């Protein structure tokens, strides 16, 4: 029994299906139960959250959590499938601290909202950036410019006239 099947056995109602993510076991989780499952998974000894990946599948958004247990030396991938219009899932910052930045990054670039995150704001792009670049429908042709405001924070605008040099 691999780690995903074990999870299915322990939480039959929350785990929708089990599968593989190329040589790593993967469990698809119901998004309502995600926090509960995450707590269980931490209890099982998965102490290292490697990465959170958001994938825009056009009709849905998938969020994939790659976990590793240093104690058991086992891999586990969790996947939640979210609605494309309003992707929302519970935050796991209370369980793995590293999720703080990983979730902010996913929010920034893919636009997944993490409920319960203490400080959910953009991390790589400045606050006020329009769109989420790793969505498939992101408009790559509109230029956005950043200037510094009075208080030293970034201001985003499509108009770069006070930044660009007049030639």
């Amino acid at each position: 029994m691999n780690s995903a099947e074990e999870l299915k056995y322990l939480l039959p109602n929350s785990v929708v299906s089990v599968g593989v993510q190329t040589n790593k076991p993967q469990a698809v989780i119901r998004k309502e139960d995600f926090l509960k499952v995450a707590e269980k998974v931490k209890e099982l000894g998965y102490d290292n959250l490697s990465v959170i990946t958001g994938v825009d599948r056009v009709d849905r958004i998938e969020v994939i959590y790659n976990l590793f247990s240093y104690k058991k030396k086992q891999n586990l991938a969790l996947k939640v499938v979210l609605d494309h219009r309003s992707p929302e899932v519970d935050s796991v910052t209370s369980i793995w601290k590293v999720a703080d930045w990983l979730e902010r990054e996913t929010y920034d670039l893919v636009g997944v909202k993490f409920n319960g995150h203490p400080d959910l704001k953009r991390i790589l792009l400045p606050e006020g950036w329009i769109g989420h670049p790793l969505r498939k429908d992101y408009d790559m042709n509109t230029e956005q410019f950043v200037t510094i405001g009075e208080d030293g924070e970034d201001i985003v605008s499509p108009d770069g006239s006070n930044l660009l040099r007049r030639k």
Partner: protein
Amino acid sequence: MDPVTIDTTKIRMTKRKPETALEKLEDTNLINTLLAAKDREGFILLTTIDQAMNWGRLSSLWPVTSGLACCAIEMMAVSMAHHDIARFGMEVFRASPRQADLMFVAGTVTKRMAPRVKQLYEMMSEPKWVISVGSCANTGGPYHESYCVLKGVDNIIPVDVYIPGCPPRPEAWLYGIIQLREKIKNEGYGAKWGLNK
């Protein structure tokens, strides 16, 4: 084929080693107009004021420490012992833009960094020069199509010398630096009016 033997005693250097102060200074090729008058005690060197100023400026360019990306690592390599820009009087990297007169824009200028680079440039006191290093700073380079990279730093600040490469080799940096020195040498009204050619 027989090995060719070369008689090294027959070879004469065509260029004489500079001996006097005048010849030494001329040999550096850093001043255009240079006259020497013989005094009772020795030589007196004469030049125009703007040439003397240019010579002072180009011999001690102080860059501001502002690495942006990969190219900045090559900037460190250039300033270290192997390539040694101390030869150009440039090893004095200043942390404050107020004390610097040269800026290497070394790396990718992202949209978010652009206003900061511009501010840094504006904080430097005149006279100031900018060398744009690497494809990224020149045109956007490999990141030209990116949503958050400025397509060339010359969109926001004037650039004096462009050094291509990704990253440019240290030798390319040195060549770029020499080009900038050449440019500074010919600055000012004297050179513009054709006096100091």
